[in-house]
């Protein structure tokens, strides 16, 4: 008993330092292989022949047209989806009706449908072989292999994003504030603009951010409906595929680097929103 060394104190609710270190190491190693590695290689490959080559690739007419098209699609599809998300969240959270759970399931449906199958569905609905599509093509409004089809495909894959962010937040906030405003004589639009919107703006922004990132980057659904016409229906991701398959590595990775910067910006804004306005997003992060 004379030379008993003191046992280092360790709370019973913690792992040993060795276990901790091993788990942190696994986490860093795994993310290094899967996330940080790919992130770095995009920029390394884009700049493999220097800045000049990368910028030359971006100012190529096809690349420039792809960038314009991708921006145009996002500008059309994201606000439409935001409008849908707000309407759906209002309908679902402000009224009581039968089949609500079923409606939510239907809104979530695009998450469990492969983007390729989504594109296939749009071709079967609006393609020139279908009844509706044949009539639209004959009247001079082609949907498939044209802008409207790409927008529809993009909207399909991003469909649930905004609604899913808003519904939990609006359920948590309840209806009391809106009811008070109504009792005081405010009109419906005034209630929405001055009571509801300030409560949901950060959740709305969060949903729009995620939906925009997906809209600009969607590949599978767009690949099926776009027809991949260079300079016309080739979005940025489609152009990346075409350049890559032609072994134009620097050009492909330069465009990829632009989209990667957009992804990093999205993550930065998303993290900032989560840090600053966690209370107004909280409901969405609880499952």
């Amino acid at each position, binding site marked *: 008993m004379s030379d008993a060394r003191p046992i280092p104190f360790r709370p*019973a609710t913690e*792992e040993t330092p060795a276990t901790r270190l091993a*788990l942190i190491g*696994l*986490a860093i190693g*795994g*993310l290094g292989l*899967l*996330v940080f*590695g*790919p992130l770095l*290689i*995009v920029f390394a*490959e884009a700049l493999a022949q220097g800045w000049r080559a990368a910028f030359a690739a971006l100012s190529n007419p096809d690349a420039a047209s792809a960038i314009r098209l991708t921006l145009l699609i996002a500008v059309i599809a994201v606000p439409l989806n935001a*409008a849908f998300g707000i*309407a759906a969240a209002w309908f679902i959270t*402000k*009224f*009581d009706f039968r089949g609500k759970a079923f*409606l939510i399931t*239907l*809104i979530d*449906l*695009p*998450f*469990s*449908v*492969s*983007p*390729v199958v989504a594109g*296939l*569905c749009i071709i*079967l*609905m*609006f393609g020139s*072989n*279908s009844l509706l599509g044949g009539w639209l093509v004959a009247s001079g409004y082609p949907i498939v292999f044209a802008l409207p089809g790409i927008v*529809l495909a993009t909207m399909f894959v991003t469909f649930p994003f905004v609604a899913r962010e808003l519904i939990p937040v609006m359920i948590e906030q309840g209806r009391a504030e*809106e009811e008070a405003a*109504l009792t005081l004589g405010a009109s*419906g639009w005034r*209630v929405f603009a001055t009571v509801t919107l300030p409560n949901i703006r950060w959740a709305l922004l969060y949903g729009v951010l*995620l939906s925009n*990132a*997906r809209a600009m*980057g969607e*590949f599978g659904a767009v*690949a*099926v409906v776009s027809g991949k016409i260079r300079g016309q229906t080739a979005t*940025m*991701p489609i152009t990346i595929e075409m350049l890559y398959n032609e072994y134009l590595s620097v050009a*492909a*990775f330069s465009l990829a680097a632009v*989209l990667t910067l957009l*992804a990093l910006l999205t*993550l930065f804004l*998303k993290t900032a929103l989560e840090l600053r306005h966690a209370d107004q997003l909280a409901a969405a*992060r*609880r*499952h």
Partner: protein
Amino acid sequence: MGKPLIHRSPMPGLGLSMGVTLTMLSLVVLLPIGALLWKGASFGLGNIWDTINRERVWAALFLSFRLSLFAALFNLVFGVLLAWVLVRYRFPGRRILDAAVDLPFALPTAVAGIALTALYAPSGAFGAIAKEFGVKIAYTQWGIFIALIFVGLPFVTRTVQPVVEEIEREVEEASATLGASRGHTIRRVILPMLAPAALTGFALSLARAVGEYGSVIFIAGNIPLKTEIAPLLIVIQLEEFNYDAAAAIGIAMLLISFAMLLAINLIQVFSRRRIGYV
């Protein structure tokens, strides 16, 4: 009489919000899916079966679902580990690691596809190391496996993280005072609490992997019977304007995914009932 279809409410905007919701849902999602099912119905059950019942289609379906299951299982384990590390431990760079988990949500799949291929090809940084050990990653099923892990990575972590945050230390202390070792506490107390959320994340990750196309086709090599995934088979049929066959494979994929999600939902209901909280 039963409940009314819609309860009367003083809230404004019923007609408008219901109209916008149902119109857009129908136009963007329901009618196109209906068109697929209609195509399948007019093609006929027998023809659908004949289309699917070919070696190449079976191989692609089996490959897609098998590798998606493996990738989702990997993400289940790694995702719970990540959630635990990010919530419980404090170390430099934790915030960056936390934000990095979401990169697969934000990074376009085509970009992920070419980046993973550049890394894991035999000439790439990681691929060269694997080659030293005699393993080929890109253009084999290993490559598909890695791409599917990538796209499903955030789901389990993001569903489990809030649950880990809410675990009360008292529960762990109680377990420890009753004589349980740390490992025993984790196995019998903590993991059961995380199970429902982890299963939700697993299901989302699986659903995402099964349908994934963009990140896989670059790294897969796309050799029929070996590394050809089911979504690619649909694209090939479409490029040959073979809409009937594309619809048949599409319907098969839809049915199998829904069956899997249903099974996972049932497991979840069962596990929640057994553990005793919602």
